[in-house]
């Protein structure tokens, strides 16, 4: 096997960046939602307030996804 070919990459490297732009916020939203479920299970009477707080957390996290996925417009 030719050792030089093991690390050879072809294609557009920017695609890896778009993937990372989805992975990061995906983990973030997952954490926000899991903690909200945990909190609602502990105190169901606070569900309405926790849902509003969760929405704010999701909004901030997914903004990163949006900005990351919009980068083809400037880096293409």
């Amino acid at each position, binding site marked *: 096997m030719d050792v030089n070919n093991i690390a050879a990459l072809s294609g557009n490297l920017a695609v890896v960046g*778009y993937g990372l732009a*989805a992975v990061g916020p995906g983990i973030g*939203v997952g954490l926000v*939602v899991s903690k909200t*479920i945990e909190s*609602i299970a502990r105190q169901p*009477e*606070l*569900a*309405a*307030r926790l*849902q*509003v*707080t*969760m*929405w*704010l957390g*999701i*909004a*901030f996290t*997914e*903004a990163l*996804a*949006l*900005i990351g*996925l*919009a*980068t*083809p*417009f*400037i880096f*293409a």
Partner: protein
Amino acid sequence: MPNTTSQLFAQVLKLSALLIGAIALVGGVIGWFIASAAGLVSALIGAAMALVFASLTAISVWLGGRLSLGGFFGVVLGGWILKLVLFIVLVATLKGATFIVGPILFVCVVASVLGSLALDAVAVMRSRIPTVDTTKTAN
């Protein structure tokens, strides 16, 4: 000052639409001077994408709040995945288009998203959501 979740989301949606409309207007004028019609179209498309993206989260939480806990998370997270897929398809479609100017579109998207985030944060901080929702226990 909103004191129910419905009032909060209605206020957030209204303020976000006003802000993004203003960004579309200013961005459209600037885009017109930079790249004539293509700049104007780019600013309008960017603002529209940001409006849909920002509004869908608030609407999904608002509507999902009326469902059971499983339904709530299904609507919110299902809406999130749907939104990302739609956005990727839109970006892939628009990427090679000749009628848009990429940097203008990008700046409009980012400005709209950051502006609506600031509005969301202010609206939540100023709201007074009670622990017990009295509108649901009227009878």
